[in-house]
């Protein structure tokens, strides 16, 4: 050794030229088999087809009659032996077994992955359940929730996924189109409203013209313990991204929950009109009813079976002892025979039916009645009760028809107003109505009749009326509903306003119904104690009451504070968010939207 080996250690970074040295091609698919075994690679390298190219060191070229060695300069230049006489290379070696280059290996692995993936997809998804069977159905993104799992026993994916049972061209068509599965949900699940509209509200009710997919909020295949009905907060924020997004319920760290509506919690205005203050301070103070005084709120109000709303006692339990007689004493007057300025000549048929021949045929007419028409008959006959010249003829026509047909003419008038005579005239005898009409046509007072010990239909000398048989009398309810259902636009002209004024008078109205049952915002009657929860929100009373009781706090009055009004019944003070923020907040109990709100309207 004449020099240090390190002096010769400069790496071989000489310029790449085909004459001077071999060119390593990283993208070439094969590498020399000798090099693969860390031996000296031959200069020619593998052939393009992957066979060894180094069996000979060169391919001699022929010039004239002579063969010349063509070994490259990089391999040492022409060899001293030169080619054999037959033109083959003198230096021959046994062939090596070229192997794939690094890049080729990577391509092989990639193609292998590609084909294995494709093969697995085709194999496992072939057939209705795939090769692995129903238990390992690769199409399923996971097991169903318990309720749905029972429906789909036996791998009945097609119950919900119509595409599961498709094949051939229909399957291909299904792959290239998208249809919402929601219609399959709606096939079983009914909602209190339009299923695909936001909050199931009808179109046009402050709702954007769009449809909502069930999948927008609900996600199946979450396993047996999955909560498909649980709505995530972000689902609400997709639409309510401005006004209803707040930093925390209490406002800690930013904006608080929007304040409740001004009448939130003012139960009396939308429920049974029960004046708590008046009852406790005045009525229950009397010695005669002292025994009915409840001890506290929970003596009358208890949570319902779900613990959501508070129930109130029914009429029989809570009210009948004092108010039943009041109801039965207030009649509904159907007909009032008014003062007539003239009298018509009864028809022959009427004379025959009524059994008399000299009915009111006098030149000087002296009316038996000095009454004016009632609001009910004025409404039915569409007359002006103050214009005698207008209503005389219709009344006498009605009486003549009633004399012949009983209650049929009344029924016709009711039908014309959109009512149901079978409900509105239930229990009224045609014979009694006919006799009543005959008496009035004869310009006589009717001697009267009454049924059921003074309750139900009865007639006075100049009127036909109805006394409620009991609380929630169906005839009275039917008349109240007819009054509300009638046309509002021409209420005054049609006598509807007067009718409503009479029927809904809190004291003298039939059964004094309106004394307790208020009219709702939509002109509907609050027949029952209205639930305080709206269709899209709820408040679980039971757990809150339990907390209050455990903490020794007064339960109901923690939130519901009675306030006496200057006029009208006492009501409850409105509830604001501070009542809730005591516990609900970022560091307290839940404050997510669905803690209190429902997407789908509640079905009462």
């Amino acid at each position, binding site marked *: *050794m004449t020099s*240090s*080996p*390190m002096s010769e*250690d400069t*790496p*071989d*970074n000489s310029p790449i030229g085909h004459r001077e040295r071999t060119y*390593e*091609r*990283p993208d070439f698919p094969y590498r020399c088999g000798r*090099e693969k075994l*860390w*031996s*000296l*690679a031959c200069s020619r390298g593998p052939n393009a087809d992957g066979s060894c190219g180094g069996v000979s060191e060169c391919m001699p070229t022929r010039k004239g009659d002579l063969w010349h060695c063509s070994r490259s300069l990089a391999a040492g230049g022409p060899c001293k032996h030169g080619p054999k006489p037959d033109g083959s290379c003198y230096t021959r070696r046994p062939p090596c077994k070229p192997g794939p280059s*690094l890049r080729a*290996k*990577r391509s092989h*692995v*990639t193609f*292998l*992955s*590609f084909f*294995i*993936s*494709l093969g697995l*997809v085709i194999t*496992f*998804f072939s057939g209705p359940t795939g090769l692995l069977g129903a238990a*390992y159905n*690769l199409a399923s*993104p*996971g*097991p169903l929730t318990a309720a749905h799992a029972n429906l789909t026993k036996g791998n009945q*994916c097609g119950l919900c*996924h*119509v*595409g*599961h049972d498709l094949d051939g061209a229909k399957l291909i068509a*299904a*792959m*290239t*189109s*998208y*249809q*919402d*599965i929601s219609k399959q949900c709606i096939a079983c699940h009914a909602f209190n409203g339009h299923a695909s509209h936001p909050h199931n509200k009808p179109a046009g009710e402050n709702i*954007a013209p*769009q*449809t*909502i*997919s069930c*999948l*927008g909020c609900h996600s199946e*295949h*979450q*396993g047996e313990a999955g909560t498909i009905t649980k709505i995530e907060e972000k689902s609400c924020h*997709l*639409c309510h991204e401005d006004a209803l997004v707040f930093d925390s319920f209490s406002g800690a760290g930013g904006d608080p929950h929007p304040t409740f509506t001004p009448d939130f919690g003012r139960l009396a205005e939308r429920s049974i009109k029960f004046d708590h203050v008046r009852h406790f301070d005045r009525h229950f103070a009397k010695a005669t009813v002292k025994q009915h005084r409840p001890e506290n709120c929970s003596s009358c109000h208890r949570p319902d079976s779900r613990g959501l709303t508070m129930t109130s006692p029914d009429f029989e339990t809570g009210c009948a002892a004092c108010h039943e007689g009041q109801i039965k004493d207030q009649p509904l007057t159907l007909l009032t025979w008014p003062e007539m300025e003239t009298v018509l000549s009864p028809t022959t048929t009427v004379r025959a039916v009524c059994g008399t021949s000299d009915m009111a045929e006098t030149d000087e007419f002296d009316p038996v009645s000095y009454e004016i028409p009632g609001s009910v008959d004025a409404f039915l006959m569409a007359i002006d009760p103050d214009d005698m010249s207008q209503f005389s003829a219709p009344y006498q026509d009605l009486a003549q028809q009633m004399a012949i047909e009983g209650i049929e003419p009344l029924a016709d008038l009711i039908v014309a107003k959109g009512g149901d005579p079978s409900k509105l005239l239930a229990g009224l005898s045609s014979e009694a109505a006919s006799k009543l009409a005959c008496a009035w046509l004869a310009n006589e007072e009717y001697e009267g009749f009454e049924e059921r010990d003074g309750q139900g239909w009865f007639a006075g000398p100049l009127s036909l009326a109805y006394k409620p048989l009991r609380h929630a009398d169906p005839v009275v309810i039917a008349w109240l509903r007819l009054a509300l259902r009638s046309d509002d636009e021409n209420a005054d002209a049609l006598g509807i306003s007067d009718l409503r004024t009479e029927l809904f008078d809190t004291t003298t109205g039939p059964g004094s119904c309106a004394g307790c049952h208020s009219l709702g915002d939509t002109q509907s009657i609050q027949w029952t104690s209205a639930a305080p929860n709206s269709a899209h929100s709820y408040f679980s009373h039971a757990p809150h009451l339990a907390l209050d009781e455990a903490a020794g706090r007064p339960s109901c009055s923690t939130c519901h504070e009675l306030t006496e009004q200057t006029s009208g019944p006492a009501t409850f003070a409105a509830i604001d968010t501070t009542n809730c923020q005591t516990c609900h907040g970022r560091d307290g109990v839940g404050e997510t939207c669905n803690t209190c709100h429902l997407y789908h309207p509640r079905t009462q």
Partner: protein
Amino acid sequence: MTKIALERRDWILLGGGLAVTAAIWLALGQTNWMIIHPAVLTGYTLAAIALSLGLYGVRKRLPGLPIGKASTWLKLHVASGLVLLFAFWLHLGTFWPSGLFEQILALSFYIAIVSGLLGRVIQKTLPLAIASIGDQVILERIPRDIIGLRERVETCLIDCATETGELSLTVAYEETLAWYFRQPRFTWSTLVGMSRGRHWFRNQATILERTLSAKQLPYLEQIKALAARKHVLDRHYALQHMLKAWLFLHIPSATVFAIAAIWHIALVHIYAQ
């Protein structure tokens, strides 16, 4: 200066690409589809981003086309890959799906993403480590360089035997040192920055120094010098090989993800009705 200016331009391009992605995302968020079919919207956005990632592979195969620098494409590829990860979580709504097929899909996705991020780290760190070695060595020439070293060691051994008449160094080489000079050794330890190969050879040389005659020691010194060169080649081999090897995980897993994703889209269409 030129290099710095180009880098800045690339980053502006990268930021612009991300801004466009964000703008598209926000615009999609305003549509009713986010309410009606959120999974469809996020899914197709995911597919579009994944497709754009695949375009980088096409770009690499078309070096002649004037469609931007490969380095810029790589930056966009990396940035889009990160966006893809967040889009995947948004689409999935969780970290890990429950269905068997979806789990295979997610597994291939995570492998592709993690290997891609690993590759990016490798691309950023290993070239610095390679540069710190000192010499510039081409990976494809390492086998021939090792053979050259081996020949020089064997020449040295022949000289030693000829001039000293002693064969103990030659025998020791045949028994132990030849294994070291045969091919790159201690690849994994070299990769993580350890010098197990150097220590191993030093131990062997120390043992030999006790047994060799004084006349043989200069030749051992020459072999030690060649071993130092071998260690350099080993480091180059390990580091440069790793620069390419991570793609063995990234490209196949991305391919599996692509196949599974296409089938997933078809399944969604079939089973959404």
